[in-house]
Every structure is written in structure tokens, then in C-alpha cells.
């Protein structure tokens, strides 16, 4: 079973659950940027949770079925007649045609059976920072589809919320190097709106807004980080790391966005505004060291 890429759109990659467990070798997790939408796409077509899908950034993707296929799109809804959040049968020659995103930026396209491209270091994800995984999708690519794994879920439509159009508020907690910044930096972060710049990608969102100056100049030995880290480079403008973040970073991390909220960050488009609110300390699941300050 195969699927042909007629138009790749501005930027489309193959993604799955990524490469957890290899960070000690310098290999980052990568994988789908908006994990919730990715998981839903696979569920809608009865795939295993780690099956490979397409992640289209800014829509524009046109695919043609070269076999009878079942396809579901999730995440950012695009203009056009294609049914979103709904598993759809395609006959040979029929097309998935995504216009431009109505809200959000990343649309997931799952095919029943999963994309059977060659895995690299245990995953079919394209890591744009490390340069690992399948090549970025281009016109004329023919993608193999694997055998169906499980039964169809028996739903016509998943009634999930669309990515937000206006300002987005996410929860943050102090990061490992919050003490490298004066107390004002934390207040500024919580009270300002940061604008997503068009210099953002799968690695992270580069944000524009009030500069956050640190109070120490010494060099930080590089240390491990995960997605959601809000790192402050010398410019003072925060970088919010997403799926293809570096395994270690040498600039101080002021704050962390709650992992549950990172998926929504992955749907922010340039010029959209992001606000931060303080995570409420939970009674369980959160270490004492995180509740202080």
C-alpha cells in the first residue's frame, strides 16, 4: 500500500513518538511536536500509539492514494473540504488536499497501518536539529504504508478543541537556573505578553518581548534539558524549546512550561502572543524543590 506526495506544502516531515532513551548518546527525543494531536490521529485510524504519521507545517499538503487507504487528520484544521478529526476512506486516485491552517500551524496526517519509511536510530522521526531521520517530504515521494495493527475505533468524528487563535496562556514553573536572574525577571515573564517570531521551528519558539537580563555573567557548563524549557540566551529574548531541542544547552533555563501545555505551544503561529502563568503546586507528583519561591 502506498501514498504519493503531490504537493509537500511549505514544510512536511514524518514523525512518530521519537527516540526516548538515547539522550545519553547525544540523540534527542524529537518526534511529533503536538503529541496530543499525533496520538489522536493514530487512534482515529486504529494504529499503534507509536505509528509514523506526517506532520504538515502551514498545510499545503496534497497526497494521492495509490491503494485503498483510511486517513485521519488532526491538529491544525486547514481550509478545504477535507474532513478534519474524522477517519476517511480514500479510493485509489483520491486525494487528501490541505489548504491553509484556519488556526494553529501543525496538521497530523495518520494513515491506517502507519507510514513504513525506514527507521533511523529506532524512530521514523525527522530531527531537524540533529539531522537524523527521514528526509523532509518533497513532491513525488511515494510513502509505503504498513499493515493495519488494530480495529477501527468506531467513531466518525473526534470532537476536540481547535488550536487557539488569540493569546495563549500556559503554566510555567521556575527552571533550574531561575536564581541566575534577578527576582524582577520572573515577574516580567509572568506579567508580559511574548510574541512568537517567524524564526521559530520544530527546535523551538523564539519569542519577542521584554528582555530578561541575568545577574551573573559566568559561563554555564552545558546541562541536559527537555521540551518546555524557557532558555535565556545573551540577547535576553526567551527561547521555548519544542520537540527537536538540543540534548544539552549552555544558556540558563529560567522557567519550564508544564509538559501538558507544550503541545499548545507547538500550535502557535508567528505573531501570536504567549502569556505565562505560575503553575499551581500540586500536593503529589511535584518535588519540594519545585514548590519553593
Amino acid at each position: 500500500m502506498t501514498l504519493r506526495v503531490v504537493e509537500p506544502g511549505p514544510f512536511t516531515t514524518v514523525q512518530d513518538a521519537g527516540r526516548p532513551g538515547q539522550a545519553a548518546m547525544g540523540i534527542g527525543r524529537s518526534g511529533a511536536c503536538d503529541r496530543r494531536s499525533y496520538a489522536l490521529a493514530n487512534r482515529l485510524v486504529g494504529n499503534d500509539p507509536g505509528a509514523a504519521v506526517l506532520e504538515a507545517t502551514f498545510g499545503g499538503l496534497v497526497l494521492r492514494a495509490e491503494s485503498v487507504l483510511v486517513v485521519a487528520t488532526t491538529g491544525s484544521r486547514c481550509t478545504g473540504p477535507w474532513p478534519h478529526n474524522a477517519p476517511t476512506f480514500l479510493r485509489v486516485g483520491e486525494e487528501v488536499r490541505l489548504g491553509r491552517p484556519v488556526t494553529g500551524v501543525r496538521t497530523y496526517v495518520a494513515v491506517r497501518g502507519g507510514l513504513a519509511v525506514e527507521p533511523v536510530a529506532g524512530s521514523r522521526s525527522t530531527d531537524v536539529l540533529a539531522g537524523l531521520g527521514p528526509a523532509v517530504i518533497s513532491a513525488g515521494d511515494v510513502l509505503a504504508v504498513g499493515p493495519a495493527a488494530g480495529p477501527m475505533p468506531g467513531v466518525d468524528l473526534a470532537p476536540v478543541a481547535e488550536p487557539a487563535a488569540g493569546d495563549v496562556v500556559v503554566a510555567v514553573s521556575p527552571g533550574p537556573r531561575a536564581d541566575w536572574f534577578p527576582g524582577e525577571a520572573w515577574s516580567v515573564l509572568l506579567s508580559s505578553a511574548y510574541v512568537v517570531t517567524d524564526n521559530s521551528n520544530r527546535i523551538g519558539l523564539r519569542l519577542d518581548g521584554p528582555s530578561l537580563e541575568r545577574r551573573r555573567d559566568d559561563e554555564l557548563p552545558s546541562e541536559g534539558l527537555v521540551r518546555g524549557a524557557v532558555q535565556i540566551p545573551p540577547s535576553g529574548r526567551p527561547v521555548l524549546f519544542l520537540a527537536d531541542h538540543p540534548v544539552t544547552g549552555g544558556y540558563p533555563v529560567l522557567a519550564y512550561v508544564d509538559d501538558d501545555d507544550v503541545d499548545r505551544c507547538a500550535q502557535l503561529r508567528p505573531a501570536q502572543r504567549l502569556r505565562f502563568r505560575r503553575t499551581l503546586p500540586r500536593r503529589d507528583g511535584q518535588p519540594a524543590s519545585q514548590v519553593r519561591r
Partner: protein
Amino acid sequence: MRVLPSGTTALLLEFDNLDQVLALYAALTEDRPDGVVDVVPAARTVLLVIDPAVTSLVALETTVRRMSPRPGVRRTGELVEVPVTYDGQDLSAAAELLGCDGEELVRRHTAQEWTVAFCGFAPGFGYLTSPDWPYEVPRRSTPRTRVPPGSVALAGEFSGVYPRESPGGWQLIGRTSMAVFDLSREPAALLRPGTRVRFVDVGLRP
């Protein structure tokens, strides 16, 4: 050990020196707590990443605080011999910075047994240390935009081998034909934390 917050899925453990990092990494490798997805050692820290469906950060912090890593114990893995042609562009400059000549630097570099302390910067880029290596090597003031793959280099207390072509600020002292990162191999990275390394001077052979 200081326990620093890193969001809802990770904890960062900070230490005074690399030896303590490696001792804890060795203890964690021997007996990895349930639900820990990734353990990322670095120069002064170890990042622990959890699967929140299996464990919580509170439980993990309690477990880690109860561990008693033995100082001086490092994880030791297989010994890899890396053939090197010591004709790097920075060999004489680096030797000069260290107050010796190229020959002496090569002699010292090949006389040590190195151990991969941690990885970072790029897939398969190992930071190698040796207790007997006497030098602290400053980075180049201007990083190169393009360092060829297989370049053997020095920076700080570390030695490393560039797995792939990349930018880089380390002092290049030689090159190896050995593929330190090869995706057709499992695992792809040859120089993983704990791997022991001996550099062998092979003269002008590639």
C-alpha cells in the same frame, strides 16, 4: 548534590565536580529507578527524565537522595582503539598554548586511557576525560564554521572526535578514519558514556 527543578517531567541533579556526576551516573546505570526514560550526564549535572504515567518526581527525588554513589567509581565499558593521524591544523598552536611541542602533545594524548564522561553537542559527540591528562586547553577564539568529520580535538579538560561535519571551536590536533557515529550500527554512537578510549598514532596513514 543539589536537586533543581526542570518542569513536570524532569529533575536536574547538580554536583561540585565531574567525578561526582560520573559516580551517580554509574549508580543509576546499575540500578535505574522505574519510570526513568532518560539519564543525561553532563559536566556538572545529571538530568533525569521520567514517564509521568509510571513514576512521579517526588518519588524519584526520594529514591535519588537515598542512593549512595561511591566516589571515584565510574561506569566502565569496552575499550575502543581510535587510530589517529596527528596532523591537525591547531596541533602546534595548541602545543604552544600548553608550553610544549606537537610531539610531546601527541605523546601525552596517546599515553592516556580516556573515558567518555558524557555526550552532547551532536549525536555521538563524546566528551572524553582522563585523570592523568594535565592540560586545560582554551577553545579557539573564533570557532570554525566547518570542522571535518573524524577530527580529533581538544577543549578544556576534554578530548573529542567530531562525528559529522559541523561548526566547532575545539582545537583540532588530528583526524581518524574511524566512524564514531554510524547509523547502520546498533547503537550508532561508538563513544557512549563509560566507553574507554585509547588514541593510537598511525602516522600519515588516513
